[in-house]
């Protein structure tokens, strides 16, 4: 009995030890096969945790086995690749959101290649995809700006009486609109009356008289055309006379164009002025009147 107790206790203890060791290894390493390790250097902001999946083409090929924080602002992440397939050398590792609640995963992005990363190689890190935290940060910024705007609006509209001004403006606009409405109503009545008068006038028009008027207008137009033609001929003749005068031929041409004649006339005028003045001063010099 005693021996049996010892055996059973030993068996139980051994089982528990196996379970705890193998179970922990299985959970931590994603299985009892070891796989191989690749390394990636991400920035601190990557937000990786142990156990997060590593995907190639959307298929899980491994998990994050370790995350080593370095002082120079990087996190050296150890990726445990559990698949037998090689990871193409063309891929880059990118940290991307997994779900909408901030969890992350490592996506290996690139094109197929016959050359693969070897065990212990360091994969190139790509540009991280913005996760929900980035969106939240942006929302925070937007929220802060919105708060500023609201604050400004409050100051302008409430504290500084903007709403009161707006209310007064609206009241003024309402009053204006009322007046405009009255004017429009009045003008509408006038317009209606005018239209009625036009309609009435239009209905009173006699087509015969209109025809006669049109004919008169046509005759007048013809007369005006003839008059225009005569004027054109007269104008041509006048133009010819003016050209002749301008060329200096004839009496008028000479009058208009001979400066000597102009000067003679000026001198003559001057002398006449002198003579007139002299005549006014000494009339007896020119008129001798005697009765006897």
């Amino acid at each position, binding site marked *: 009995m*005693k021996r049996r107790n010892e055996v059973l*206790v030993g068996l*139980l203890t051994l089982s528990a030890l196996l379970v*705890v060791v193998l179970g*922990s290894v299985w959970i*931590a390493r994603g299985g009892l096969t070891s796989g191989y390790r690749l390394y990636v250097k991400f920035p601190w902001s990557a937000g990786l945790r*142990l156990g997060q999946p590593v995907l190639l083409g959307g298929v899980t090929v491994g998990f994050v086995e370790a995350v080593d924080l370095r002082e120079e602002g990087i996190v050296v992440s150890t990726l445990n690749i559990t698949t037998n397939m090689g990871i193409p050398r063309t891929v880059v590792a990118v940290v991307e959101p997994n779900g909408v609640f901030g969890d992350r995963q490592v996506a290996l992005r690139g094109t197929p290649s016959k050359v693969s990363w070897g065990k212990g190689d360091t994969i190139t890190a790509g540009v991280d995809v913005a996760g929900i935290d980035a969106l939240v940060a942006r929302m925070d910024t937007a929220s802060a700006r919105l708060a500023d705007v609201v604050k400004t609006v409050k100051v302008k509209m409430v504290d500084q009486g903007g709403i009161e001004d707006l209310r007064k403006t609206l009241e003024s606009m309402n009053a204006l609109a009322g007046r405009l409405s009255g004017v429009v109503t009045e003008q509408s009545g006038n317009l209606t009356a005018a239209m009625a008068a036009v309609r009435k006038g239009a209905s009173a028009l006699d087509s015969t008289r209109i025809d006669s008027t049109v004919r008169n207008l046509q005759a007048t137009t013809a007369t005006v055309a003839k008059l225009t033609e005569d004027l054109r001929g007269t104008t041509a003749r006048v133009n010819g006379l003016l050209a002749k005068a301008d060329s200096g031929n004839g009496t008028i041409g000479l009058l208009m164009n001979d400066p000597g004649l102009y000067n003679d006339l000026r001198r003559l005028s001057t002398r006449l002025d002198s003579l007139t003045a002299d005549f006014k001063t000494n009339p007896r010099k020119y008129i001798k009147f005697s009765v006897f």
Partner: protein
Amino acid sequence: MSADRLTHRPTEELSAVPRAALGFLRPYAKLTNGFLAGIGKRAYFARETIRGVAEGRTWAPELFKHMRSIGVDSVPLACLVAAFIGSVIALQTRYQLFPGIQLSVVGFISRQMITLEMAPLITALVLAGRVGARITAEIGTMRVTEQIDALETLAFDPVAYLVVPRLLAGLLMLPVLSILANAVGLVSAWVTASVATDVTSDQFREGLRLGFTYFQVVYSVLKAFLFGGAISFLCAYEGYVTDAGAEGVGRATAKAVVIACVAILILDAITAVLLAPYLQS
């Protein structure tokens, strides 16, 4: 001087009116006294137990018997409870998720709840009923039938003979049972999530790996170790100080189970406060 202290109460120097005014404090003072005296008695008992550990030849032959009683015989019960707990956790977790959360979270939450809390705690609470009651009843019966007095007469250290092997068995077997409960609970959760919900096996495994550190297992085992010690020690004490008669044994057994359960919960809270910050991966 000592007799004076026991008979002379400071409040007796006061006049009748202030004494009556302070009368309402008397029950609380008695309660506090009782509480502190209980702690003190258990501390003395702990000292005796530690002293008894040195007497290996007395307790060693009994150890495997109690390890089997506490550990091996409790395996079916512990596994059954763990299986149901794991299954329920997986189901509840899945159905409480709202759209948008990746389903691998079911594996993650199941692992965290089972490993860090449920497996050690529920196993300990169940064993407090099964093992603790048994320890109290055994030792209490020995007390009321004066077998303990007989052991003392035979120059046997009753604490080394009765308490130490049970305490060591509890300390050693609870972690073992907790490990099994962890494993059974996780497998049960995995199977339930994969079969009864839309969580795939791969998703559950992905969540199972997320943020896992070996310290989580250590934490679970450490808690079970403390719980095992609490159950064995407190229940052995209650049995050891049992009043005379069958009624006393029954009362002591019930009291032991209650005290053990409360102690387990207090220890659980203390370990969480002290060690939970180190669990972050």
